[in-house]
């Protein structure tokens, strides 16, 4: 059968050389510059706010909180800005989740949703290089931006730590400081990327990312974190403010721990004691502790000393990094599996 003659064409070089990475970098940048710009704008606005608000707080702390326990400190610093600081901390907790969800989830989900993967994965570069070239630069960018932001957060929190209002270990700020903030952002991004690949639609993937991140963050703060290093145990009720108190309990003459009910009973049995301390006082107040120890009960407290802050940061940063790498690798593996 007649076939067309093929005019001379440049033949392929023996052994195709791969498409260079920097070209893929342009692709990623062009495709996601809107998202990256959005993240930058969002953080930028937040940063301006933190800067302005932080200046006020620094000024107030310097002026009124030396000594830290004075009444003027309580009025002009803690009382005035305390609520704001709490709200800001809570808002900051959401930042890694938002960045990760909105930067990570749409990367693959949009391709799958709009069908553009049929274009992207049939180009000469190949789907593997394309995926790695999309995910890695974004992951690095997101982490770097978050890391820079942490410095600002640390500066913002500094007066509160100096005034003894909050310890760096506390759940409210631990994951905003040191490595943790950047690591949590990276983890959120990785969760987002995998969710996007699995769910294949941008909006549900974002929702799933936020949910999964929230679950992980709560589980870590409420349970996992305190077990990184075995807590120290002591009888001393006067621990420095920098320590992170995990739990306390009393043991009776037999060495067995006492339940709350049993302790309440003991306290009420002695009217004198009750009158002194009141029925609802926290049991670690010195009165209670003093009373019970006088009566032969032993006070125990488990805690993490303040010096362990950085080791904990390393541990948390480390396992979050490992998790992120695992999730991104899983995503790349899924892409490679050619499920069309």
């Amino acid at each position, binding site marked *: *059968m007649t076939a067309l003659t093929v005019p001379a064409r440049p033949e392929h070089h023996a052994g*195709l050389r791969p498409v260079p990475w920097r070209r*893929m970098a342009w692709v990623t940048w062009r495709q996601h510059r809107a998202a990256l710009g959005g993240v930058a704008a969002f953080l930028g606005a937040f940063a301006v706010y933190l800067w302005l608000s932080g200046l006020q707080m620094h000024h107030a702390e310097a002026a009124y909180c030396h000594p830290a326990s004075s009444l003027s400190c309580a009025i002009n610093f803690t009382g005035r800005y305390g609520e704001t600081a709490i709200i800001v901390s809570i808002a900051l907790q959401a930042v890694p989740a938002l960045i990760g969800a909105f930067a990570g989830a749409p990367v693959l989900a949009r391709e799958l949703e709009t069908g553009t993967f049929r*274009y992207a994965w049939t180009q*000469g*570069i190949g789907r593997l290089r394309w995926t790695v070239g999309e995910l890695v630069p974004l992951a690095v960018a997101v982490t770097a931006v978050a890391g820079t932001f942490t410095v600002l957060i640390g500066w913002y929190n500094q007066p509160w730590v100096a005034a003894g209002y909050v310890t760096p270990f506390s759940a409210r700020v631990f994951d905003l400081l040191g490595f943790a903030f950047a690591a949590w952002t990276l983890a959120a991004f990785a969760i987002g990327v995998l969710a996007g690949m699995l769910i294949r639609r941008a909006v549900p993937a974002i929702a799933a990312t936020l949910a999964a991140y929230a679950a992980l963050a709560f589980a870590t703060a409420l349970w996992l974190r305190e077990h990184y290093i075995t807590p120290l145990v002591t009888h001393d009720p006067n621990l420095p403010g920098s320590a992170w108190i995990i739990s306390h309990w009393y043991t009776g003459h037999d060495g067995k721990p006492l339940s709350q009910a049993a302790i309440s009973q003991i306290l009420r049995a002695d009217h004198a004691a009750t009158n002194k301390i009141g029925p609802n006082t926290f049991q670690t107040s010195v009165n209670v502790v003093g009373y019970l120890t006088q009566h032969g009960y032993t006070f125990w407290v488990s805690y993490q000393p303040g010096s362990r802050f950085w080791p904990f940061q390393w541990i948390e940063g480390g396992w979050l990094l490992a998790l992120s790498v695992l999730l991104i690798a899983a995503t790349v593996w899924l892409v490679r599996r*050619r499920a069309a």
Partner: protein
Amino acid sequence: MTMNIIETSGLGKRYGSTWALRECTLAIPAGHVAALVGPNGAGKTTLLNLAVGLADPSAGGVTVLGDKPAGSPAALDGIAFVAQDTPLYKNLSAADMLHLTRNLNRRFDQRYAESRLGELGIPLNRKAGKLSGGQQAQLALTLALGRRPRLLVLDEPVAMLDPVARHDFMATVLTAAADDGVSVLLSSHVLAELERVADYLILLSLGRVQVAGEVDGLLACHRLLTGPAAEADRYTERPVVHARRGQAQAHLLVRAGADDPVPPGWETHPVDLEELVMAYLREPGAAALPGPARGRALPPETGEPSEVTR
């Protein structure tokens, strides 16, 4: 030029427990415009996805451009794919799409692509999402042809286009075939245009290949016999693909050559491509597979339903 642009052997793809494609054995020679035809759900998109590496086979294998595995870097380099609904990044301009394609491939003819878009009147700085359907299709095609592929694969490329846009699109495709010797594989619903456009035909039905071969060869070995309806049932000289009966008259589409003897009292006509495709589509059990890889001519004695060549 005897290289096979696409070769499959026993190719199959399963989604869950359903086989979208099975026992598909093809050898499509290069230098042709091959049309992939079949009803919805026949497996056309599945076959195309397997050929361009968007899906992995569940059974059998597929090689392209001679001997390269589908989806391998060499295959991706030489094949350009335009999927259904011509996917483009809607918020990127046409110029950005060119830049993107240039960056994602080893080889891209920027000048050709720009001049082509200029000829078509597609402004380079307009966002792809704001172009008309025909312009989007032409843009996607320009991106594909700019890669200077050896094989162009199109999945229902003209389904959503108006007649003028459709004509211009196919003119571009066929001109590329004429100028550069690009082989083309396209899936289509539009039977009426097949004869003008295709010189190789693959007919899929229910996930299996029903017909595969050069159009000239297929038309040469089918005839339409018209004769008395009463005698139609007794006709056994040649395999009957499809029969249509009136009260007194019947038409039989048979597998026979132009020189084959015609029963007395019967007329013989050549068959046109649309008629041939419709007849096979109506008879899912029939098949016409000349075993192209083996180079055998279609044996006229093959009864129906025909076996699938291995």
